[in-house]
């Protein structure tokens, strides 16, 4: 199994309360799968994604990727591990303002940055800074940054949430195209963007409520 989680829990505590953002989730993801994670706000879908991506450490449980347990890696080693195998896309593009599109992609790693920008139809933005581009263009550049090293898994957290419908469709189409053959995990509350997904996980109150093939959209 490529990516496996066992009895994952993420608990936030303060003096008075205890919140289980992720509560006993176990799952496995095979190579090449396109997995959608759906659920209402606060259901723990983003938290689950961050745990699976090694961006957050679980309160208990274990995540393994290619048989490597994240818990066994030191902080910097885990960062290197993420860099070697994963790509990330967030709701906000998080492009670096003083870098051009091309440089932002290169900040993600070495690779065919120029070709990728062309593939994502933002080659005209090659030398533009983020503040000179539209929201859709910025998100496509952030996709280029995520996949420039040809990662084995791409994690996307609400990648279209800040876009209008036509732009959302374009971004998802681009994302599917450049991650073809790779594994893609997408967190969203908009089921319509999960067209072509091999599985859809439904989260409710931190628990995995359903693990199903995608329904008609």
């Amino acid at each position: 199994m490529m990516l496996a989680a066992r009895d994952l829990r993420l608990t936030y505590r303060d003096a008075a309360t205890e919140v289980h953002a992720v509560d006993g989730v176990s799952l496995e993801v095979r190579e090449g799968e396109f997995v959608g994670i759906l659920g209402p706000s606060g259901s723990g879908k983003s938290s689950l994604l961050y745990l699976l991506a090694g961006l957050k450490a679980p309160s208990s449980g274990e995540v393994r990727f290619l048989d490597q347990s994240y818990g066994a890696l030191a902080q910097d080693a885990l960062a290197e591990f993420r860099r070697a195998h994963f790509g990330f896309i967030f709701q906000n593009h998080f492009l670096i303002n003083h870098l051009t599109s091309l440089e932002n992609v290169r900040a993600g790693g070495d690779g065919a940055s120029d070709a990728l920008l062309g593939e994502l139809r933002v080659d005209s933005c090659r030398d533009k800074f983020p503040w000179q581009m539209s929201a859709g263009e910025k998100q496509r550049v952030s996709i280029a940054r995520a996949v420039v090293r040809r990662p084995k898994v791409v994690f996307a957290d609400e990648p279209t949430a800040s876009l209008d419908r036509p732009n959302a469709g374009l971004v998802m189409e681009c994302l599917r195209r450049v991650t073809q053959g790779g594994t893609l995990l997408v967190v969203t509350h908009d089921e319509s963007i999960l067209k072509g997904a091999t599985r859809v996980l439904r989260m409710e109150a931190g628990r995995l409520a359903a693990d199903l093939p995608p329904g008609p959209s």
Partner: protein
Amino acid sequence: MDPLSPWTYGRRNFRKILPAVIILTFVVMLVVVILSTIAGLKDSSLVFTREFDEWSLVFPKRDSRLPKALIAEIAAHPSVDRVIDSRNCWVRLRTLIGPIPFNLRAARREEMEYLMTRVAARLKEGALPKAGTSEVALHENLMKANGWTLGREFGMEVDEEDWMPGRFRIVGILEGPTPLGLCSFEYLNNPLQYAFSAKLWERVVVVSKPGRIAELNAFLRGLKDAKIYDKTRSVDDVSQGFDRILLVFRFISITLIIVVSLVVGLINNIFFAQRIDEFAILLAIGHTKRRLFRMVVGETALMMTLSWALGLALGYAVFGAFRGIVLLPRGIPIPFWHLGPLLVSAALPAVAQGFAVVTVIGRLRRLDPVAIIERRG
């Protein structure tokens, strides 16, 4: 080029870092100008002690006269080349820290030439003082310092505020590496010609054999019935005043370094806070904290180095102009390069860098990329 290189950041964010660069540049400039001037002034005043590399003065301890046996004992010492009978005579020398007395060597004509040879002095203009006259010859730096020209007269008869009784006339200008002043021994020693001669204590100029001044001074310090004025004392006299001034300016410089470093460190911290999204995303996509730390250190180092280089260039330009226009024409031969100001000014970016690095380490250690990403949506 690496998009995350300090150079790219500095070039693209020049306006942002400009205030910190300007502050640092001007403080480095201030430190260079002030410390170069103060340190240089001390060095330029120490030039007036150079003659004591060749000879020392011996005065009577209790009486106004030195015992003949004592002079004979001194003359017989193997480190002594010559003992020259002399008298007291000085000019009021204007310096940046106020007037100081500069002693002339009262000597006979042949002895004047001998003393000049020993300190590589030459007659630049005019003539040496004639025997039995109130004529004097002064080194060109002394002339410049007082703004005097050939033919100028000094002494209490000319200006009652002067410190030297009588009237003296400058007839010669000397040049060479060692400031020297000469006057007639015969004139100062003759009560019929110089009414104040009785009040002027005897002294002898004890000239060492070349390279044996230390041995000579050790011997002279052992004499019971005489006082000695040598290189150590003359340097002490000059240094005392300057060391106090330098102490004050060092304190000011250190305070300035600490305050400016804190300000620059604070500005750096604000920059870091403004770029927190950038660091969060870089961390999320797999850049290690160590790499981010190196990146920030590199950016800060570039800013500090740039400010220091600009500050040095500006500082030395201002100091050079001040030296050329104000100091040198006034006979203050202040050296241009001095290690002290360079080192102190280098401490400024170094401390600021240290402060910035320490605070950034703390912030980076606590940085949780997910918290930032979730907050920004």
